């Protein structure tokens, strides 16, 4: 598979969901060494492969998007998800998000933004730019589980190896079988964050996203 290609889940035609989940490879970007350690552990414990980098520039380097033509194609491990801090020196998480969405190779990779600040205009700006979701720090296990479920659902829905009717049955099965747990946080107001999955679906159905906000 080429770098940046969206992973396809192969589901048996019988609809048997006991197939173990393929591992997501997540690129985590954060300038804080403490936060990198925590997010890495959160993701590993959620059965993801993790690569951590300390800056947006390093992230672009890893993806081969930094203009160094020789770098791309050398990375064997395709990235299925990018999780990035918003406030970083140099390239912010928002700048990184834009660069990824501008890339024809990587624009399909979901990007999740993390921030310690619950600033609604910031959240809206990121969603408008194509962020999959927004996590309020400090990030908890329940947040990572929710994101992983969201990504796996989207990838299953995108799966082109299924016939149209099987795809519909699978989507229904996933809706019935999975019961996403609400964010366990009671220490901060994340009422804005709860709306994201529905906002994302609205975006997929209607490209005129900005008019909805």
């Amino acid at each position, binding site marked *: 598979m080429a770098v940046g290609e969206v992973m396809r889940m192969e589901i048996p035609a019988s609809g048997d969901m006991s197939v173990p989940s393929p591992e997501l490879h997540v690129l985590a970007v954060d*300038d*804080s*060494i*403490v*936060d990198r*350690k*925590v997010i890495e*552990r*959160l993701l590993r*414990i959620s059965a993801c492969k993790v690569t951590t980098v300390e800056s947006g520039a390093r992230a672009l380097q890893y993806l081969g998007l930094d203009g160094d033509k020789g770098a791309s194609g050398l990375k064997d491990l395709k990235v299925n998800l990018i999780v990035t801090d918003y*406030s970083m020196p140099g390239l912010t998480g928002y700048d990184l998000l834009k660069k990824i969405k501008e890339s024809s190779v990587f624009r399909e990779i979901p990007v999740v933004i993390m921030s*310690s600040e619950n600033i609604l205009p910031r959240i809206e700006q990121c969603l408008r730019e194509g962020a999959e979701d927004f996590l309020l*720090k*400090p*990030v*908890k*296990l329940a947040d990572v589980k929710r994101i992983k479920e969201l990504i796996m659902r989207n990838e299953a829905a995108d799966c082109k190896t299924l016939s149209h009717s099987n795809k519909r049955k699978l989507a229904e099965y996933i809706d019935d079988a999975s019961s996403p747990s609400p964010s366990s946080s009671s*220490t901060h107001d994340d009422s804005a964050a709860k709306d994201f999955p529905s906002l994302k679906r609205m975006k997929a159905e209607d490209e005129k996203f900005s008019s909805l906000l």
Partner: protein
Amino acid sequence: MDTLVSQLQRQFRDYTISLYHQGFLDDQFTELKKLQDECSPDFVAEVVSLFFEDCEKLIGNMARALDQTGNVDFSLVGSSVHQLKGSSSSVGAKRVKGLCVTFKECCDSQNFEGCVRCLQQVDIEYKSLKAKLQDLFSLEQQIVQAGGRIPQVDI
């Protein structure tokens, strides 16, 4: 008969509860404990160790910036405070995080005396937490060495 193990376990439980009740730790510390298991038995100790190194580095930066008499760059101090607030939040260091909120306000209003006071308090506070967590980890080690299991403490 009160065995050594059960004595140590009780001490550990009481000490843990007091750290939460006195506001040194908050539920994010509990979240970190969830991430520790047989495969990563020292995870919490490793993260807090990184945190204390971070404290030392950032406080050093703040002190240097505040030392530029007559030419203090408050936004520089503020940015270090912001980073410290972030990492203290990520490990559940509740008092340190609280002090950072006040400290940030002093930076934003360019209150030099306020900043110096906050810097002193934050320095004392992180060192105090460091000593307490060292005691807590030491209790854990003693329990394990005495052949016991570290109890799960529900706050």
